[in-house]
């Protein structure tokens, strides 16, 4: 290439040292950026046109369009469902906040060293195994129907309350595992250097391990939250009047499935930006790490 002075970064033997890094990378990915964009746009348009034509020309398409993509029905159902989606948003937002705290507690319990803490570690392990093993809808049903049925004084009997408890219990099990992976990923030398300065085990966890661990697991944690948001629709099972139940009622009244499509649109509109945000975080973290090693 143009300048023979450009040398390969250390630790990458076998690469031609005369080829600058940027060129090599773009060549592996396939040529100039502008040309690539055009090819991508063209192939995408062709692909989706073909798929669209195939669907639209299928024998059952008029029926499907009538029952699932009815414009007037959509215009009626969408605001109705959206107004109930606030209930879902309340449920998943509250659950997420509780999960952040509760899962961290479980993860820290599971990471405690030493024989003395064995019972706590076992309890935390049993908890995560159990709630990752039972279908979410069963936990919601068991708590939502079962707890109020106990008739205990002071125990709330609102569906919304038990839905939040159920989602918190289930998703804390997943998120605890995510946290634990983050805690385990912190090199023991960080703990050694903190302890050598006289910080206690707890102070080391609080100031040295957790801040680094949590930062590392934000992307997988947000992925679990997207799952939780979708599962807030399961509360409809209890007969709680949220977005999915609203869609079901409209569908049953009008003999038309377009309300489900409307709800799907709402979910996609809130989850896709989050998924893109997660990707962006991961890419930024990778760039940061590469930038640091090149120093």
């Amino acid at each position, binding site marked *: 290439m143009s300048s023979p002075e450009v040398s390969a970064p250390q630790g990458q033997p076998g690469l031609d040292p005369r080829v600058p890094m940027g060129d090599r990378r773009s060549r592996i990915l396939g040529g100039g950026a502008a040309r690539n964009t055009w090819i991508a746009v063209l192939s995408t348009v062709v692909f989706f046109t073909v798929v669209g034509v195939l669907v639209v020309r299928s024998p059952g398409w008029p029926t499907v369009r009538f029952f699932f993509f009815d414009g007037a029905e959509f215009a009626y159902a969408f605001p109705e469902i959206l107004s109930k989606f606030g209930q879902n948003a309340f449920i998943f937002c509250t659950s997420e906040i509780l999960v952040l705290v509760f899962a961290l507690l479980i993860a820290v319990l599971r990471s405690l060293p030493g024989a003395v803490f064995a019972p706590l570690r076992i309890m935390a392990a049993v908890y995560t195994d159990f709630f990752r093993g039972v279908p979410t809808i069963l936990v919601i049903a068991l708590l939502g129907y079962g707890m109020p049925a106990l008739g205990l004084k002071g125990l709330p009997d609102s569906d919304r309350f038990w839905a939040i408890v159920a989602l918190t219990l289930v998703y804390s099990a997943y998120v605890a595992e995510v946290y634990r992976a983050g805690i385990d990923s912190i090199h023991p*030398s*960080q703990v*050694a*250097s*903190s*302890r*050598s*300065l*006289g*910080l*206690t085990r707890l*102070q080391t966890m609080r*100031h*040295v391990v957790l*801040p*680094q661990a949590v*930062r590392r697991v934000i992307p997988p944690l947000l992925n679990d939250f997207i799952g939780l948001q979708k599962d807030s629709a399961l509360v409809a099972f209890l007969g709680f009047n949220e977005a999915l139940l609203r869609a079901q009622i409209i569908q049953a009244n009008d003999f038309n499935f377009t309300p489900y499509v409307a709800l799907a649109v709402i979910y996609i509109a809130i989850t896709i930006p989050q998924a893109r945000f997660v990707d962006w975080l991961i890419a930024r973290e990778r760039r940061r790490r590469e930038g*640091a090693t090149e*120093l």
Partner: protein
Amino acid sequence: MTEAIRIEGLRKSFGDHEVLKGIDLAVDDHEVVCLIGASGSGKSTLLRCVDLLEPVDAGRIWVEGIEITAAGVDENAVRRRIGIVFQAFNLFPHMTVLRNVTLAQEKALDRTPAGARATALSLLDRFGLADKADDYPDRLSGGQQQRVAIVRSLAMDPDVMLLDEVTSALDPVLVAEVLDVIRGLATTGMTMVIATHEMGFARDVANRVAFLDDGRILEVGPPEEIFSEPREAATRRFLDRIIAAGRM
């Protein structure tokens, strides 16, 4: 002179591999002792045992006259009085340089944030790092990071400093700046035990040199004696290899 460190019959195994096979060593206040020996001879493990980072299998250790291997000793209190600097710096990457130096002062010594900050800034200034206080460690060169690690330990006002091959992970051009810092510390009378492969440096800075071989201290003596007329054949072989490798 009083003793800063006394080690008697120290043994340490990892699994069925015995790394330390009965170490006896005494270090006086204001003394600098360099540990030399091949990789795997037990230098790092010895230092980590003195800081109670590794549980000891047998033997006893005293620091400033107090036995730290006794039952019921507050190991956090022990570690506060001993500074250790590692080969790989081990700075906290999520904190600024200043926070790296103030954290333990505040949390372990209960110093006020203002007091900790003042101590940190004056030490950073003394070691030429004043303009790095607000940077994160990954913006610093290896030599700068290692100097910050030394400052972080010094800020705790330790009785003793343990240095574990602190220049082994550095580019050759960065070694000198770190060794100069340690030389400076020696002139202030800091008691230090230094595991090192830098023989020229050991000869300069050490009051005594201890040669470790396979988990034992084979000989201890003034540097001129160890480097010029070692008693043990193993010491001579080790030094010959070092000279052949151009490290002395």
